[in-house]
């Protein structure tokens, strides 16, 4: 069972969101990293880009798969983890820490921005189902 830290907010497409001050740090979960395997390339938005909940903000590639990254909240990109471009192992090593992807300034208040996302327990149930289904 992959690590699912409590206190974070999750999407069904395996992104996590962590409020920090008025902003939200976004990454992908340990489950996502494990299922992708062998990451080789990541494409992230530029500073200032607008992102919307449920819409694509970038993509991540393994050797033989490519996955879209979906934003958990509406807002604009205020920071991008540039270090990932040259060292994707950071993401494999520590998806909830130094493997963060972007930081977003939400368009609305924080509680409003995060409303409707999954909590750790709900996300854990989701990946349990996926692991079963994927057999």
């Amino acid at each position: 069972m992959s690590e699912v830290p409590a206190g974070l907010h999750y999407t069904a497409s395996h992104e996590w969101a962590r409020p920090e001050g008025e902003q939200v740090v976004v990454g992908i979960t340990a489950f996502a990293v494990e299922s992708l395997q062998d990451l080789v390339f990541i494409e992230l938005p530029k500073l200032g880009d607008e992102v919307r909940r449920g819409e694509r903000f970038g993509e991540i590639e393994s050797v033989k798969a490519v996955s879209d990254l979906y934003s958990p909240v509406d807002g604009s990109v205020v920071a991008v983890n540039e270090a990932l471009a040259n060292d994707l192992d950071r993401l494999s090593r520590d998806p909830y820490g130094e493997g963060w992807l972007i930081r977003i300034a939400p368009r609305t208040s924080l509680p409003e921005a995060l409303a409707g996302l999954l909590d750790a327990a709900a996300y854990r149930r989701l990946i349990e189902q996926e692991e079963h289904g994927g057999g």
Partner: protein
Amino acid sequence: MSAGVRPGQAGGAGQGPPPELASRTIFEESRPGRMAVSLPEPGVPSPGAEALLPAWARRAVPPALPEVGELQLVRHYTRLSQKNLGIDTTFYPLGSCTMKYNPRLNEQIAALPGLADIHPYQDPDQVQGALELFYELEQLLAQLTGLEAVSLQPAAGAHGELTGLMCIRAWHVSRGEAARRTRVLIPDSAHGTNPASVTLCGMEAVPVRTADNGRVHLADLERKLDERVAAFMITNPSTLGLFESELPAMAERLHAAGALVYLDGANLNAMLGVIRPGDLGVDVMHVNLHKTLSTPHGGGGPGSGPIAVRSFLEPFLPVPRIVRGEDGRLRLETDRPQSIGRVKAFLGHAGMVWRAYAYLRAHSGRDLAGVAKHAVLNANYIRVRLRDHYEVAYPGMCMHEVVLSARRQKRLGASALDIAKGLLDRGFHPPTIYFPLIVPEALMIEPTETETRETLDRFCDAMIELAELAARDPEQLRQAPRTLPVRRLDEVRAARQPVLRWRAEPAPADRPPLAEGDACAAASAGVPATR
């Protein structure tokens, strides 16, 4: 990680070059001053390039091409060829690729000066024979497909898809419907080229689900069929190796909804001479000459992907068209106002046209039917021989290929990839793996009609042995292959730090020191070309 197999000695008969030479590129063989050709003297009193070209037109740095002698050249590429498996060396049951025997006669025919050495801009009177072969192959393909008009212009299957979709789109334009008909329905088992071609044609690919019996999910198709649909793009037999017996009914629904049916002809070998796709309600299809009609695959082409269409789509076919004048002479016609235009320079892959024509004329109608029947026989024989050892993706009779799943083996620790690599050590090219995407751990096996029963039996024996090995010692399988010139390659490294070309190694002084014993670094001291 010592394998007991010395680097560079596997694969050949142990007589290959020492390991440090085994993978040398032609650039490393180069010495200034060598050459493998003899060129004529200019024979005219002109001065050299410096005098004939102004300085701004002249190249400053010459291209760093290798310089080798003729024997060196022959040895280098002969050695490389020996690091390849091909149909000529090995059973090659690559699903959906129809790796049948490539007749040598057809290679000789294509090399005749009257076919190899003619120019597409010669006066038509000087190339009537060539035009005749184009014309005749069009007729034969029309007969095989049950469709009325054929264009030989597309260069490969994917190019045929795009050309066919463009014709469909042009037809909708002619009816004033193109603006709303922008969707193409595609089963989720389809080749990736299908949706990619749709995008290239400025339309949107909409997937249709596969039902539990492995056929198109009829209710899902029905649900997605509306006035926005331009076409339904189906592969039959499907990539699951199954016959879509509901295709005539589906085609009727599509036509009633104002849309057309495109058939991906990748799997035509199963229908050759016994089923005409036109009779199933298909409006447009492509034929892969390099699959069904035996032209060689060439290590990745050339292909050839002629399209066949119903007569109402004929005006939209690409130019030029080959037409017979009243005097019986053939000529090229380009003035066709409704045509989608030209999809490639000149006329198409003529060299493949000669070969495909020869292949078809080597057979009677009954012989061609036999091709399909034996292709289907061989696939089903493999299916029943392996069905107790691997999961068969979908039950029932298959057509020209059978899709197995190594799901059971995967749970034991050996994936479809490991099975594939194990086959390599047993003298077989693996089947297509991990496709279709909807079958987990897919092994897609297409034996073709040109293999003997003994070969099929040896292959099945190897597959059964691998299934047993997966149960007994999966780790051994994960180490395969061991008998080829290289073992498993680091694809992550290749993608993370792409080295896409050879470069001269930096002079020793500029070279960063290597960690002691770092064979990997020593072996690839070439400068990464990107990132």
